[in-house]
Every structure is written in C-alpha cells, then in structure tokens.
C-alpha cells in the first residue's frame, strides 16, 4: 500500500516536471531546441511506464495543449509561442495515437469491431 502511494506520488512528480519543462520551454529558455522535447517525453514515457495508463491520458494532454494553443492563437495569431505549443500538441497526439492504435488492435474486449 505504502509502495503504491510512493508510485503515485512519483508519477505525479514526473507529470509535474513535464509541465514545468513545457512552460519553461515556452519562455524560450531552451532556445526552442529539441532538448525540452527529449527530456519532457523521457519523463512522460517513464510516467506512462509506471502508471500503465491508456492513450486517453496523452489525448487529454493533447486536448489541453490544443485549447492552450487556441487561447494563444485567438489574440496573437500564429506566433512563436503558439507554434511551440503546437509542436508539444503534435508530439502528445502522436504519443497518444501510438498507444491508441496498440489498444485498438490488442484489446479486443474494449474495442469496437473496426
């Protein structure tokens, strides 16, 4: 039980770190390089590995980023920050899609026929 609690706490810390990296990246701290993506997604995949969650989590992340991108886009248009959020969105979408595709083909009990 105690171990389970620690695992949840560790996972939440990982997720929190992903968000920290994401928001720090949006400030331009990493010069918009690929480093924050590599670090962020390493931590995110570790989170997925520990929690063994479905693709829905990645899509929820993507949905959050989509809304964030929209909020950024409406007043300013396709600026640097908006596009950076777009890159994060795309990567979470692809991560979710990989999980989703795997689930669609390997978990017949929860999937639709097609």
């Amino acid at each position, binding site marked *: 039980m105690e171990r389970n609690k620690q695992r949840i706490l560790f996972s939440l810390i990982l997720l929190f770190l992903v968000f920290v990296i994401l928001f720090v990246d949006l400030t331009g701290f990493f010069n918009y*390089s*690929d480093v924050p*993506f590599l670090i962020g997604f390493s931590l995110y995949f570790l989170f997925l590995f520990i929690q063994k969650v479905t*693709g*829905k989590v990645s*899509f*929820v992340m*993507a*949905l959050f980023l*989509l*809304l964030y*991108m*929209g909020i*950024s*886009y*409406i*007043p300013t*248009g*396709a600026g640097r920050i*908006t*596009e950076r*959020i*777009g*890159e994060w*969105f*795309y*990567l979470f*979408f*692809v991560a*979710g*899609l990989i999980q*989703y*595709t795997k*689930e*669609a*083909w390997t*978990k017949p009990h*929860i*999937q*639709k*026929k*097609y």
Partner: protein
Amino acid sequence: MKNIFHCHRLAIVISIGLFFLPFFWLKQGFVDLGSDGGRLYFLDPLVFFLNNFKEQNPLGIMFYATIPHTFLLFLIKSVLNNSTNLIAIDRGIQLSMAFYVTYLVIRELLSSSENIIKPIYIPWASIVGGIVYAGFISTINWPVTLLTQNQIFLNPLLFFLFFRYMRTKNFLYGLGVLVVTIVWSANFGFGVTPQIVSFFPLSCLFLFLYIRILLRKSIPWKGLGFLTLCFVGLHTFHLLPLVASFFDKGGMIRGIYLSGEAIGKRGVYYFDFNHLDLGKISTQLFQPSQWNGQTFLILLVPIITLLGFLRKPSKLLALFGIFFAITLFLVSANITTIGVQFYRMLFHIPGFSMFRSFNEKWYFVYAFFYSLLFSVSFYQLFVKKRTIVAIFVGLCVIGSIGYRIYPFLQGKAVNTTHWQSKNVSVVFTMDPNLMDAVGYIKMLPNDGNVLTLPLTFPNYQIAYGKEGGAYVGISIVQFLGGRKDFPGFWSFGPYQKTVFEALQKEDVPGLLQVLSLRNIRYVFRNTDERIMDDFPGFPYVYPGEMYYAKDVIPLIKNQTAYAKLLSQMPLQERFQKGFYSLYELDAVKIRPTVYIPDVLYASVSGALSGSSYRSAFGNELTCTTAKTLDMVCDGSSIQGILPDISFIKPSNTTYDLTIDLKERKDPFLVVLSEDYHSSWEMKVDSKKEGLTHIGINGYANAWIVEPEKIGNGGVIHATIKLGFQKYYTYGWIISGATAMFLILGVLYKGVRKLYGKK
C-alpha cells in the same frame, strides 16, 4: 430508412446550393482571369486549346494535358457564350462536388465499417464532414484559382470511385475513374505533379490498409492493373512526351526536378528561407478563414476531432489518426528541429523539390484526411448519444463554419485587389480594343516574335478592363494571339540581364540587336498610363538586384519615356485602337527565323556591338566545333560569297528551306532561331551528311553546312524538323486506340447485357 433518405436529400440540396453560389460572385460581363498559371481558357477556350495543340515541342509538355479539358470548356462556352457564367460553372462544380463527394466518401467508409448502421448518425456525420471540408477549401486562393484547384473535388471523387471499385469489383466504377481523369485531364499532367504525388500514394495506401486489414477483403489486383493500363493508354498523348523529356539529357523536366540546382537552390535553399513563415501548425489545425479567423469558433472542429479518441478504441479512427498525423507533419514541415532536418533531407530524393512550397502542395491531402478524421470522430462521439445531441452539435459546427466563411460565400474571396497595386480590382470587363488588337495579331504572318511593352519584371502582361479592374497574368498575345511573346525581363531567358543593361545604358542599337537575335519582329504596346502608375511593384523589379524605383531605368520610366524610346527605333505602325498599338520593326534590322550569318563572334558582346544584323555568336563548344571546319569565331566577315536562303513553315515544328549555294565550296552556317533542342534535325535530300548541329546565339540552333559533302553546287532543298514531335504523334495514336478499345468494350458489354436480359 426515411431519415437516411432525408439526409441524402439534404446533401443534394446543399450541393445544388453550393453550385449556384458562384453565379452571384461576378456581375454579368465581368471576369477574373489573371494569375501566373493563366486562366485565359475561360475567355477563349477554343483558341487556348488550338494554341496548345500546336505546341508539339518540349515546351508543350507544360500545358499539353489541358487539351481535353479546354475542349470541354469550349463545348460549354459554345452553349453559354459567356465567360462570366463559364467561370461560375467551374467554381460551382468545385464547391458543390467537393462537398457532395466528401459526403459520399464518409458515408461509404462509415457504412462499410459498422455492423449495425444507425439510421441518422452516418449520413449526418457525413454531411457535417462535407461542410467541414468545404470550409477548409474556402481558405485557399480563390481569386487566382488554376486548373490545379480542381483537386479539391477530384481527390475525393477518385478516392470514392476507387474505393467503390475495390469493394464491389464493378468495372463501371473503374470506367468512372477513366472518364473523370480524361475530362479533367489538366489535373493529371505535368503542372499538377506535386498534387498527384502528394495525394494518390497516401490515399491508395489508406484504401489498401482499410480494405485488407479492416474489411479483410481481397484487393482486385488484376482489375487495378488493367485500370492502370487503360489510364496510361488514355493519357499517353501528354505522358509520352513527358517521359521522353525525363529521359532526355538536358531536357526541361530533368532540369526542373533532378538537377543539382533543383535540389539545392529550388529545394533546400527555398525551404530553409521560407519554412518558418509557411509552416504553421496552428493555422493548419484551426484552418482560420480570411474573415472571422481569430474567434473561439475555430476550436470546435479540432476539439471534436480529438474528443473522438477518448471513446472506445476504433481501428478506423486509429487508421485515420495515423494518416492525419503524417499529413499534418508534411503540410506544416516545421515540427521539431529533427522534423525540419528530416524534411530537408527529403530534398535529396529526386524530384522532391516539387514539395518546397509544402504548405500548398500537401494541403489537399491534409484537408481531405482531416475532414475524414473529424467525421469519424464526430460519429464515434455521438453514436451512443441521443439523436438530438448529434444534430445539435452538428448544427453548431455547420453554424460556426457558415459564420466564418460567410464573406467567402458572398464572393468576397474573388472580389479582391491585385498584389503590388494601388487597390486595382482583379475583376473587370474585357476591353474590346484589346481583343481587336489580339485578333489582328492572330492574322499576322508567322515570321517573327512579339515584344510587349511596357516590360514587366517577371513575364506578366497588364491590361485594364473597360470597366472595373485590370488583367495581370500570362501573355494574352501569346496564349490567345498564338505568337511567341516577350512581355517581361524573364521571358528573354539568357538575354534578360543584357536587355536590362541595354535599357539602363540607353543603348538603343544594343537593344535592337537583342530583339533581332531573339527574332522579335513586332512590338505590341499598351499606352495606358494607369498600368505604369497603379502598379508600383511592376515593372522594375529585376532578379538579383531588386529595383523598385522606376527611375532606375529612365528610358522606360513612364509612357512618355516609352514613346521616346520607340521613336528611336525603326518602326512602322501596323495597328492602333484605343490604348493598343502594334508596330513592325524594319526587316533589315531583324534576323529572319532562318538565316545565314555573315559574321561569327565568340561572345554576345561582339554581336551586340557589331553593325551587322545577320551576325551570330557561339559559345566555347560551338566555336571549337566550328574551328574543325575552318570557321573561326573572330568577328570577321565569313569569307566568300554566302548562299541565299528562303524558307516556309508548314507547321510549328517543320521548316522547308531553299538554299542557293552560288557555287560555294566552303562551309557556312544556317541558323534557326528556335529554342535549342538536340532533336532538331536538318536534312538535305533526306540525308544528314555534311550537316553538323550546334547551339548558337545563346539559345538557338545552327547547322554547319559543308557544300562539298552535300555534292551540289546549285540550289538545294532542305528540311528542318523537330524529332521530339514524334512522341506527341505516337501519344495521340496510343490514346486514340485506347479510347476506341474502351468504347467498343463498353458497347460490347452493353449489347451482351441487353441480349442476356431478353
């Protein structure tokens, strides 16, 4: 069942509405014809068709595929007798078919993959998806729509027909594919290679995966092979010259796609320079319209698209998601540094430079898969909900799109102004004086080219309409008048810098030499002051050195300066009406299309400064070849009495020459002022002996003739033919034979079916 019928009727009503919408965009008599690809086929499709048909040379590859389509436009126009309505019909077909066929595709895909079909959900999701697609395509450049834009409905239509054929194995759908591709042949030619290469491989892969993995059905490979053969056979009339040019060393196609310059300068360099500005993920996801683009309504479609993934996993949605992700990556080409480097690397694939404008070229396939993904998501999201919820959300989506594209539906995308102009409208009525001038040009003897003034930076012609705005686009003189025209600096090819410098230095004799070397005999002038005043970006932007100020070339800074320039040239007025005049240059100053040079120089500067208007100049290779036959590029007169030459031009690719050798024994040159191509062939009495083909004057053809080898000291008859033309002839034969085979096959099948029934 009743609901399905109602939905289908609704789809038909929407598509009819979309078809008639463009009829309200332009007032009767008004047209919009500009753009760099040209839309003059709406004005006179028959002349456009005939001019293209005559171009059985390497240049013809560019437009040859448009022939059946322009012929169809001619048939429609002969009924309507009105360019305004012809344009409206064209746009109406694009809009209505784009919606309706997307609706059919979605309905078909969803129906095929569902066990229990719920009456209203599939057709409703299909209608909403069709509207979403119509909303997407409203964002593309409608004022200058080219034939390539037909892809917006041809892509879904062919996808639908292919899918139906692969599912039902009914060859009638295959026949539908062939008919569609031949009627809209322009969309399967050289000009739309990027759109074809971007759409069909990906969509065929999708269909293959869908049918094999999801439906677990077999692929009719034999039928598809036969269909491909029929397609190639029908389109051979333009594909064969294209393929021939591809394998032709130094040929145009090879140069455009495969040369080092194509990969470097046209590909990587262009991509590096533009990818940050062109590749916008947010724009591709939200698809904002030109109006009301930045409202919260833009979020509706992407959110619904994403929410579908939160339901139970579906293989169909997964498959669409994969294709959406691929196409979003390609259309934005700006996702992560590694992604950008990967796209950059793709330019090393031969021909990939065609995707340097990635945001345009991948757009059609992206918009298609995005719409399908949206529809499947929409369906997944609401299939378990009450019907009223699905209808309400669908109406919200339709309403949001309708609100955003309402100005488009009113025609505001078309009624716009020219770039680099002082708010000059793109919509106008044709000036009858201009059409009379073009009519006069058509009647001129085929003995030289035309220079159109004022000169522009690229190669556009500008002409104000009688009412409204102005035409800015490809040369009317060339594409409707049927004469090779030089309307801007670019059209001079290797001479563009020379022309610019001659004008800048006010070197009128030098300019005359250039006109003479390019076989320009006529000067077509538009004296309208407005085309100089209202287009500040024209005509002084010179490649490499950006000159925006008109004072850079005082000799042509305004119409008064043009008048002064022309007064210094040996011209005779042949036609004048309204703003339009046509002059003929003094024949003595103009080199005929075929001539025998009296002086041979080693560079263009020699020819320009020389006094002879029958001289020629060679490059290093030409002069080395000439030297082996005792002809020296030294700027001295060619020794001995030169033969006399006369010619007739039975076709665009054939010249019949009569040469009076006057007992000359020494070699001499015969110059043909047509663009150099290795397949130009000169023969005397059907023999090539004693004739050496070389390049001359920086662009033209010449033959070193050795009279001793010809063995005739008197009058000889020679022919010059373009060998490349044979590919067009073979192409037409194969296309004709395939069409006959198909017609007979269909008739045979039809008769048999009829008999069987009886």
